[in-house]
């Protein structure tokens, strides 16, 4: 393959350059976000507070890390050490640092991948397209896990393509760890990971090597993935008492109760455009019998495919990282095709190829940078409900007073992951996180006290909180032991009925 010949002549740039570029980009992203006054989003707040509880040795911290596939442990575990690195005087949330670092890493990885393939100077323009994409930046600025997901996706996608192309062990290892960590970010990417594993398996099967070699390749590629899964199950068993606790929302709750992904219409068109672009790259790769290009484009298309599957299961609200990942995937596919154009021809044909590539890049740039929706929308594209919690929390002291008016000996169990964001600055001992709420245990532990349950409206990710699959329809109908008390923003308060124990 022409691309491979060129690869041989490409020297890696100094390590210092890559690390330096990464740090500079991270600082720029972080500083811009702070300058524009972006707030930490709900996800960032939740993960920050899980880390705080974890370090304090609280059970809620441990439960928060592993108890749901919708809140994967890896982003939280990365925020944990980042908190140590940040000087306290900065009072900067660690999730912002992590998002900026992973956002910058996405860009550096893209640049490296395109350079290794030989995409020429156009790579800088492609990278710029991603760097200026407002949706991407918004996720970086709000402490979301989406930049981490896109970064790991770029790593896995590039590695698996390079593996198909060159069969270097190092690429297989990067793919193995990239996909394992991707699984650790949560449920969203599992469909894509499955597709990637299938590509590796089919590629091995197609090569007609010995069974032992196929097993060895699959073992090296899949062991980190299997280990991550096993570890998650083990942790669930140790902390939650049920190895399948994290996936129960999938097994028991079934399709999600709906709730749409709140995106401007123009952005949908952008994603559709990116999918068409990747589809076209697939056609071009098929025509040139470029196996690595086909693999890359297929896995790129697997992203909207997985999003479609989730939409079919009424979990459309959780597809934002999948759709965002389409952006770097499209850049990789385009870059790979450009490299083929540059390397497969010489002389006048090469110049013509370069011009064609340039036209393609310039044509796709507005699509990559979301310029169209930017032009159409009146305000910034804010996909993350960053101020949600701030808008809701003013009623929390009122709720405290409301409870104390009735009894000074009360306990309010706040259900679900958003409780970490809701109770972030709440020192009142009457509130307690409840990720694994159990009526009988609560009654036993707090015998004699008046107990309340605060449940979030079952929409989007909140619908997957354990309280909703343990007590179906509790928000609407209450439970057999839970009586409706009052509404507080998107939350509903229930009082738990306690039978008098005979003495």
């Amino acid at each position: 393959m022409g691309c491979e010949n060129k690869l041989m002549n490409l020297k890696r740039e100094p390590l210092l350059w890559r690390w330096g570029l990464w740090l500079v980009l991270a600082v720029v992203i972080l500083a811009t976000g702070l300058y524009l006054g972006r707030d930490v989003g709900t996800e960032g707040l939740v993960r920050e507070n899980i880390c705080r509880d974890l370090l304090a040795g609280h059970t809620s911290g441990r439960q928060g890390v592993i108890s749901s596939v919708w809140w994967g442990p890896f982003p939280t575990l990365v925020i944990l050490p980042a908190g140590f690195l940040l000087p306290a005087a900065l009072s900067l949330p660690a999730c912002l640092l992590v998002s900026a670092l992973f956002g910058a890493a996405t860009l550096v990885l893209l640049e490296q991948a395109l350079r290794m393939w030989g995409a020429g100077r156009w790579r800088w323009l492609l990278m710029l397209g991603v760097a200026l994409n407002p949706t991407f930046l918004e996720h970086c600025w709000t402490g979301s896990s989406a930049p981490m997901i896109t970064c790991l996706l770029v790593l896995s996608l590039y590695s698996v393509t390079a593996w198909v192309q060159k069969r270097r062990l190092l690429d297989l290892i990067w793919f193995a760890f990239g996909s394992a960590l991707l699984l650790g970010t949560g449920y969203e990417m599992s469909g894509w990971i499955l597709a990637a594993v299938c590509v590796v398996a089919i590629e091995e099967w197609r090569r007609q090597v010995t069974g032992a070699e196929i097993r060895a390749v699959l073992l090296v590629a899949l062991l980190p993935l299997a280990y991550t899964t096993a570890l998650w199950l083990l942790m669930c068993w140790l902390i939650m008492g049920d190895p399948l606790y994290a996936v129960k929302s999938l097994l028991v709750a079934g399709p999600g109760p709906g709730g749409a992904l709140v995106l401007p219409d123009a952005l949908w068109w952008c994603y559709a455009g990116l999918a068409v672009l990747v589809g076209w790259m697939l056609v071009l790769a098929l025509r040139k019998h470029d196996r690595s290009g086909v693999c890359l484009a297929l896995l790129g298309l697997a992203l909207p495919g997985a999003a479609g599957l989730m939409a079919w299961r009424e979990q459309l609200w959780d597809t934002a990282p999948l759709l965002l990942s389409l952006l770097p995937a499209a850049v990789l596919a385009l870059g790979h095709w450009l490299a083929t154009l540059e390397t497969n021809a010489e002389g006048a044909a090469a110049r013509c190829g370069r011009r064609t590539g340039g036209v393609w890049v310039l044509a796709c740039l507005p699509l990559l940078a979301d310029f169209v929706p930017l032009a159409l929308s009146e305000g910034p594209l804010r996909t993350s409900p960053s101020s949600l919690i701030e808008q809701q929390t003013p009623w929390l002291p009122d709720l405290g007073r409301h409870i104390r008016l009735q009894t000074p000996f009360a306990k309010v169990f706040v259900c679900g992951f958003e409780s970490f964001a809701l109770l972030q600055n709440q020192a009142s001992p009457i509130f307690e996180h409840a990720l694994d709420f159990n009526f009988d245990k609560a009654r036993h532990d707090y015998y004699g006290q008046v107990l309340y349950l605060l449940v979030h409206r079952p929409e989007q990710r909140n619908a997957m909180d354990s309280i909703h699959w343990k007590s179906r329809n509790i928000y609407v109908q209450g439970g057999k032991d839970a009586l409706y008390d009052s509404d507080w923003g998107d939350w509903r308060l229930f009082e738990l009925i306690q039978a008098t124990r005979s003495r």
Partner: protein
Amino acid sequence: MEQENLKPAGVMDDPLTLSRLRPEWSARVPITRAQRMVLMAGCAVLLLMAAWQPWLTARAFVLVSIFFYVVHAVYKLVLVRFSVSENSEIVIGTDELAGMHDDDLPVYSIMVPMYHERESVKHLILSLSQLDYPAGKLDIQLLLEADDQETRAAVTAITLPPGFRVTIVPVSLPRTKPKACNVGLDFAHGQYLVIYDAEDRPERDQLKKAVMGFSRAGPETICLQSRLNFYNPRQNLMTRLFTAEYSAWFDLSLPGLSAAHAVIPLGGTSNHFVTRNLKDLLGWDAFNVTEDCDLGIRIQRAGYRTRMLHTTTWEEACSLLRFWIPQRTRWIKGYIQTYLVHMRHPLQLMSELGVAKFLHFQVVVGYSTLATLLNPLFWFLAILWFLFRIESLTSLFPGPVFAMGVTCLFAGNFAFVYLGMIGCYRRRYWDLVGYALLVPFYWILMSYSGWRAFFQFFSDPFKWEKTSHGL
């Protein structure tokens, strides 16, 4: 027919020259008085602290241990990353070898120390005869102990090919391989020199690669270490696990160390030297039971360098536990000796090696040995917690320490298992990749040997537990 060298000559007359001229470089005194006092003072302070503040002392101990576990795990992964860099090994292509002319090749000395290895003689002579090197430029010495009648008889029974000769090592203490090598070094007249074990089967073109490697590496490189691996990896479970370990060590860790310009503890055989420089370094320390590791450090201290050569020598993997344990005991005991010898004057060591290599030495020789001793304690704590959920244990691991400990337990150990798999994969031992998953059981044996070595270091520091071959 034996053609014996009986009369030593030159500076290296005495195989114990190193210990006589530079006693500070030798393990003849295993632990100096100053070191003993420091160790005893350290133990006393630890005991006093444990008596005064037992819980705090235990927490501090756990904190320090876990910190080093994290450092070690990260270090190993970084080495693997280095091992795939371009300068990790000297790779000689077949076209380069084809361009070499016999007339230009220097005399190459090969030394094979043998002791009670009658059964290996034929194979050894056959495999050395097959080396792709002009016979007239080979200087092969079979180093036989004077009282080893069976091996001497086996050698006498064979007509040695041209280039072979026998050197008799006089009976004296200590009865170690490095002492025999020092005797042989005195007779070696090749420009380069290599050590092989009796059961070794080097690749045919290894010597030519080494000659080319030295010319390419530059004058500061006086030692090239070949990769070692086994020709019997599938004999039983023991050899499979041993192969996984060796593949990770020689194919990943050592090339990584070489690329990082770190100290390289030499492997037991297939070390190629520039003979003159080796003599300047006074050869091997006859009192060190891992003389190769010690020499690797001394090479760096003298300002020279060791690099990895992309060629393999095939050895026999120890297949029986009753031989594997003593062999590993000796290796770990030798690492303890080496560490203590070079840490007699830590500041001097740091100034000679530089800070980076000094830290490499601490991790590669010091901590890896200490880890084999510490592991059982932490396995025990982990088992206690998993089985009985003893809550008081959790107070030994406050927040950040717990986080580091969990990372080591789940990520660090997995990384070490995975390294074994990658080692097998790189060696194209496809069927052994899966066996690397069983490596944790192998670690238990290593820790057992570690403690055995620790006690033997004090009771019998120079004891050389010979590994039997041809099993």
